[in-house]
């Protein structure tokens, strides 16, 4: 097997604040192959954005990667110098953000901001960069692209701005596009359009995508693999089918109960009760224990072990271990 395009190994990221160390990401690992779409799902505050910013190395003070590796084609980005990192960002991995209204600089034209990254990472001259910017705007389906180049961000709608962000992120043909809740701030109809656009571009350009969302429903039919995150850890990882139809972590089950679905006849949506755990003071057992209906004694005492359910499916929940025991008991092995 060839090495994956991106390997995140045991990544930890913390914020040192007055009240202590906020452990936003606690040793997460995953791989991303060339041209694949990986979904990262979790409630707000589960560490999705911090994971993305760690990969881009755009964390702001006091955020700091405290451990682990991020291997891109086998090279550890965590060890990159500032200069190496500058040449890497926007060229090999790009990111688009949640709020397109505030993510573009209000005092520069769309054209200026598009050209900027093209001029930075390619040896095109100004004129060629402008041509490329125009081509990108057409690609992402912005109407009247020539006019848009001369406009300022406030003259565009939210959906248009997100398209511009996508154009900017893809202008230098990155290998990976990280989309951090790209549709959360948009109207529902616009959301669908943007998701469709991303799928279309992925087929056309073949880049890998890390699709971050708090809404499982959003990414159901676009991801090759899904990671469910809680309190900066990976709870469960599997194909979209496995996560949707055979969830093996109580948190994943909770998330599924909280989204509208067509295939089951849930009369109503059930949000997960309780509030997320205090990241400065993590419990020694399962981080989800205080909100889990199935919580057992062992859950409070030790971290759930990662259980391989099949080749593509893993989950870290004591329920799985219990099940294995019960099945074994039935067969008289224990």
């Amino acid at each position, binding site marked *: 097997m060839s090495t994956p395009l991106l390997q995140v190994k045991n990544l930890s990221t913390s914020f040192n604040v007055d009240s202590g160390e906020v452990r936003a990401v606690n040793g997460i690992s995953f791989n991303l192959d060339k041209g694949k779409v990986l979904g990262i799902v979790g409630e707000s505050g589960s560490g999705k954005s911090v994971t993305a910013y760690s990969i*881009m190395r*755009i964390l*702001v003070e006091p955020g700091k990667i405290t451990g682990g590796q991020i291997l891109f084609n086998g090279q550890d980005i965590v060890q990159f110098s*500032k200069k190496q*990192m*500058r*040449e*890497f*960002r*926007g*060229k090999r991995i*790009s*990111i688009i*953000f949640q*709020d397109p209204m*505030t*993510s*573009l*600089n*209000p*005092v*520069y034209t769309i054209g200026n901001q598009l050209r*900027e*990254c093209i001029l*930075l*990472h390619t040896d095109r001259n100004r004129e060629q960069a402008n041509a490329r910017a125009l081509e990108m705007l057409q690609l992402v389906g912005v109407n009247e692209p020539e006019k848009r180049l001369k406009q*300022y961000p*406030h003259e565009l709608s939210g959906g248009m701005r997100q398209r511009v*962000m996508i154009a*900017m992120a893809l202008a230098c043909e990155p290998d990976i596009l990280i989309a951090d809740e790209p549709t959360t701030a948009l109207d529902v109809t616009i959301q669908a359009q943007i998701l469709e656009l991303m799928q279309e571009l992925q087929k056309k350009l073949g880049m890998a995508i890390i699709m971050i969302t708090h809404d499982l429903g959003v990414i159901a039919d676009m991801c090759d693999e899904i990671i469910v995150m809680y309190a900066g850890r990976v709870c469960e990882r599997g194909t979209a089918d496995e996560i949707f139809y055979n969830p093996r972590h109580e948190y994943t089950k909770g998330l599924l109960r909280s989204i509208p679905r067509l295939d089951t006849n849930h009369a109503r949506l059930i949000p997960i009760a309780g509030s997320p755990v205090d990241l400065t003071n993590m419990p020694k057992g399962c981080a989800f224990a205080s909100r889990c209906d199935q919580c057992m004694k062992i859950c409070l005492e030790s971290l759930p072990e990662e259980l391989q359910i099949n080749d593509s499916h893993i989950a870290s929940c004591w329920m799985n271990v219990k099940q294995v025991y019960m099945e074994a008991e039935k067969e008289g092995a224990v």
Partner: protein
Amino acid sequence: MLKYTVKRILLAIVTILIISAITFFAMNAIPGGPFSKEKAPDPAVQAVLEARYNLDKPVGQQFILYMQNLLHGDFGVSLKTGREIATVISEKFAVSARLGGMAAGFAIIVGLVLGSIAALCRNHWPDRLIIFLTTLFVSVPSFILATMLLLIFALQLKWVGVFSTSNPNYVLPVISLMLYPMSYITRLTKSSMLDVLGQDYIRTARAKGVRESLIIFKHALRNALIPVITYVGPMIAGILTGSMVIETVFTIGGLGTEFVHSINNQDYPMIMATTIFLAVLMVVATLVSDLIYKLVDPKINFD
């Protein structure tokens, strides 16, 4: 933009008219007159003088006469010295503008640089030092600062000469005049810069691989300038028209000094002319700063 500018100019004219009227009636309401302090002028002479300058007419009529002359570009002559007021003002303003221009220029440049440094070194010693000094300069009155500077650098250390008409050394007056606006701009720039550096588009720029210096000077500074510009316009006008305090401490005969003298002397046409001149300057500076604002911030749409 044009519509807006025209509207602003019309408004400015109304403002200046109102200021003129208030000044005119207020100065006439004060007891005494331009000739009353003279050593017992002959009543006959005083009557002739008053008739000559229309001072014997009702105040309302005087005002209308004055404004009519003004529209013809006639500021009148000083009742004290008999000189053409237009000449006096242009002469004195040249001095004030020179002093003020230098002070404003340095205040803006130094203020922007120090403010940016403070923002970038937040909570480290350069920031702490800058904030300490600017707090000091903002809170100590300028006449104390000016006097101290004069005592230390001119009289004690003798590094620079005292200002005199034969030896116009602007160093100390410029420093005294610039410290307050410079400090104010520094603090404004710092807070505005910190605010901007936390914005999402800065994160976008970083994610694109833009180098740190360009993030500051291209992406952040222009946004950070927006609130600073609103302060700078009126500040420049204030400084250009001459700080009476600084001019007095350094005995610089500028417009500020002239203004004070004219009030003491109840030199009516002189008071009017300086007031109107200052008002026009202030209004123009505010207008210009609004227009610059528009250039820097594309979101501002005046029409």
